[in-house]
C-alpha cells in the first residue's frame, strides 16, 4: 500500500474491491476450478493422443501389407502399421481380442476389411483408396501402361482463394472457446459486481460512502477493480494453459493464437467495461440479494443472446455479429483466428464497441447515481430511467 494521499477515490474503492475478492473463498474456488478444467482440456487430449501410436492392421501377406503401407502414406504417415498373421482365423482372433484395429483379408475381387463391431470410416476410406490405387496400377501394368500414364488427367488438386488458417473443426472449436471465455468471465464477474453493490446497499454502508466520495467514483472503482480482476484471471488461466501446451509439446498452436491475443484483450476489456456498468446498475436497482434474479435478467440476456448467436449462427450472421457491440467481443476474435479478416473490420468493430461502451457506461452511471441511495424497494429499469436527479 502506498503512503500517498489518494488523489482519486476510485483507486481506493478499486483496491478494496480487489483485496476483498482475492481473499474470498468462493472466488478462489471458482478460479481454481476453471484453472483445472482448462488444464485438463489442454493436457488430457495430448496424453491420450501420445499413447496410441499407429493403428495396427492384421494382414496375411505382402499384398495386404503393401495396401496398409500405401494407406499410411495417404494419411500422412505414422497412422497405420501392418501386423502379419498366419491365417484368417488368427486374424479374426486378433480383431476379436482388440489386438488390432481391423484386419485386411483377401476378398472377392480384391480385399475385405474385417472389424469387430465397426470399422472407423477414416481407416476404411484410406484402405479403399490404397487398394484401388494398387489394384489399378497392377491392372495398368498388365495393359502396358505406367502408373503415370494411368493417372494422367485424373488428378484433383485443391486451390483456395482465401485459405483459412485453421481446419474447420479446429476453427469451430476455437470460436466457441473464445466466445465462452468472454461469456463465462463477463457473467461471473457481472454477478459479483451486482452482488457487491447490493451488499453495500443492504448493509447501509453506502450512505457513508456516498457522503465521503462522489457516487461516480464508487462506480468507477467497482468497474475498474473488477475489470482488473477479470483480466488477471484470464491471464493466469492463459499462462497456465500455455505452460500446459509447452509441457505437452503442442506449442505450434501458439503461432496461430498469438497474433489474435492482443485483439482479444481489446475486445474483452471494452465489452467487459460496458457490461460492468450495466451490472452495477442491476445491483443498485435491487435492495436485497433476492432481487438480483430479476434485476440482472437484462444483463444476462445481453450476454446470452449474442453468445448463442456467435456460436451457432452461420458464417454470414457471424460476420454481422462481429460488428455489433458486445456480440463483437465474442465473435470478432474468433473470426480473426479462423478466417482472414481485413484489418478495417476489427478496427471498425472496435469503434462501434467504443461508442457503445461510452454510451452504456454513461447511462449506467446516471442510473447508478439515481438509484444507489434508494433503499426502500426494488426498482425497475423503466422506473429508474424516469427518475429525476435527486
Amino acid at each position, binding site marked *: *500500500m*502506498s*503512503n*500517498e*494521499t*489518494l488523489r482519486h*477515490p476510485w483507486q*481506493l*474503492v478499486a483496491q*478494496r474491491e480487489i483485496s*476483498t475478492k482475492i481473499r474470498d473463498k468462493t472466488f478462489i474456488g471458482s478460479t481454481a476450478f476453471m484453472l483445472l478444467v482448462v488444464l485438463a482440456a489442454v493436457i488430457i487430449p495430448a496424453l491420450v493422443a501420445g499413447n496410441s501410436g499407429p493403428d495396427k492392421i492384421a494382414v496375411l501377406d505382402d499384398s495386404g501389407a503393401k495396401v496398409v503401407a500405401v494407406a499410411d502414406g495417404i494419411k500422412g504417415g505414422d497412422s497405420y502399421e501392418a501386423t502379419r498373421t498366419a491365417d484368417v482365423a488368427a486374424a479374426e482372433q486378433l480383431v476379436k481380442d482388440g489386438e488390432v484395429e481391423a484386419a485386411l483379408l483377401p476378398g472377392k475381387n480384391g480385399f475385405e476389411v474385417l472389424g469387430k463391431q465397426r470399422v472407423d470410416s477414416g481407416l476404411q476410406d484410406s484402405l479403399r483408396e490404397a487398394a484401388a490405387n494398387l489394384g489399378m496400377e497392377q491392372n495398368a501394368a498388365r495393359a502396358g501402361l505406367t502408373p503415370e500414364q494411368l493417372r494422367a488427367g485424373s488428378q484433383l488438386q485443391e486451390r483456395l482463394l482465401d485459405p483459412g488458417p485453421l481446419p474447420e473443426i479446429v476453427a469451430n472449436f476455437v470460436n466457441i472457446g473464445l466466445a465462452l471465455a468472454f461469456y463465462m468471465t463477463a457473467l461471473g464477474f457481472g454477478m459479483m459486481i451486482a452482488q457487491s453493490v447490493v451488499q*453495500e446497499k443492504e*448493509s*447501509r*454502508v*453506502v*450512505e*457513508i*460512502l*456516498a*457522503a*465521503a*466520495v*462522489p457516487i461516480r467514483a464508487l462506480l468507477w472503482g467497482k468497474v475498474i477493480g473488477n475489470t482488473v480482476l477479470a483480466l488477471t484471471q484470464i491471464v493466469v488461466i492463459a499462462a497456465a494453459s500455455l505452460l500446459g501446451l509447452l509441457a505437452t509439446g503442442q506449442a505450434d498452436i501458439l503461432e496461430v493464437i498469438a497474433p489474435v491475443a492482443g485483439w482479444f484483450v481489446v475486445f474483452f476489456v471494452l465489452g467487459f467495461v460496458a457490461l460492468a456498468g450495466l451490472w452495477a446498475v442491476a445491483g443498485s436497482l435491487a435492495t436485497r440479494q433476492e432481487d438480483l434474479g430479476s434485476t440482472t435478467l437484462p444483463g444476462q440476456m445481453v450476454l446470452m443472446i449474442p453468445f448463442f448467436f456467435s456460436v451457432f449462427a452461420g458464417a454470414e450472421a457471424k460476420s454481422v455479429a462481429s460488428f455489433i457491440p458486445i456480440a463483437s467481443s465474442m465473435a470478432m476474435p474468433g473470426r480473426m483466428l479462423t478466417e482472414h479478416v481485413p484489418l478495417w473490420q476489427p478496427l471498425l468493430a472496435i469503434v462501434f464497441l467504443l461508442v457503445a461502451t461510452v454510451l452504456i457506461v454513461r447511462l449506467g452511471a446516471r442510473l447508478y447515481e439515481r438509484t444507489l*441511495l434508494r*433503499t426502500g424497494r426494488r426498482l425497475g429499469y423503466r422506473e429508474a430511467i424516469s427518475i429525476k*436527479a*435527486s
Partner: protein
Amino acid sequence: MLSVAGLTRRFGEHLALDDVSFDVRPGRMTGFVGANGAGKTTTMRIILGVLAANGGAVTWQGEPLSNEVRRDFGYMPEERGLYPKMKIHEQLVFFGRLHGLDSLRAAERTDKILGRLGLAERAGDTLETLSLGNQQRVQIAAALVHEPIALVLDEPFSGLDPLAVDAMVDLLREEVTPEVPVLFSSHQLELVERLCDDLVVLSRGKVVAAGPVAELAAGPAATYRLVVDGDAGWLRDVPGIKVRDVAGATALFDVVTDPDGGLVQQVLQQAMSRGRVLEFGPERVALSDVFREATR
C-alpha cells in the same frame, strides 16, 4: 461555522422541509430535535450531499459547501452500516483514507481510536463478530477516524445503555477539537439538555425554535422563583408583578411592567429585608416542555 439557509425539500406532494435555516456554531454541540418525520434525517442527508435539496443552500464558513470540504466531515447515518465481513482495523483505515488521510496516518488514527474504545485486541476481527454495542462504537469510530472538521450524527445514542452513552460522550469530547461544530439529532431530550449548547427544534419541516439551550429553557416570559424563610404572600401587593402561585414560603411570579429595569432587584431587596432568602432566580423550564410548547 456550518449553516443551512432556506432548505426546502419535497417528496412528491409531501413538503418534508420548508425553508429550514439554522447555524451550527464551532465548538458547540447543537442538538437537533423534533418528532419522528419532522425532517431531521432529511436535513442531515442534504448537509452531507447524499440527498439534493429543492431549494436553499448549505454553507461552510460562508461559502457554498464543496465536495472537497464535505469529504472532511464526519457522518453517522441514522441507518447504521459498515462492511460486515471486513476486519475492523482494515475497515477504519479504509474509511480514513476514503476521507483523504494517507495510509500511515489512517493506521495511526485507527490504532488510537480502537485503543480508546477498548477494541484494540479485536482489531483483526470482522465487524459481524462484534456485539451490537461494539459495532456501534466502531460506527462512531468510522465517523471520527479522519479527524473531521465538522460532525453530523444522526441519533448517535439510540439503542445505547447509559454507560455506553457516557463512554461515547467522553470519546466525542476527547476526539472532537474545540473548533469543530457538531450537529446531532436525538429523541432523548434529557440527554440533549445535558450535552448540548445550542438547540434546533424542527416540527413538520419547519424550524420552530433555535438558540442556546439556556435561553430556550428560560422560557418566553420572565418568570422568577422565590423561596423565603417565612410567608411569601406579601408579593401579591408588589406593583408590576403578577404572582402565578404562592404556597407558604414559595412563590412563582412574572414580571409584567418594569419601566426602569430594576424591579427584580427591588423584589429581592425587599425579600431580604423581611427575612432570609433561601432561593431566588429565573424559573427554568424543562426542555421537554420547551419541545412540547414549540411543536404544538
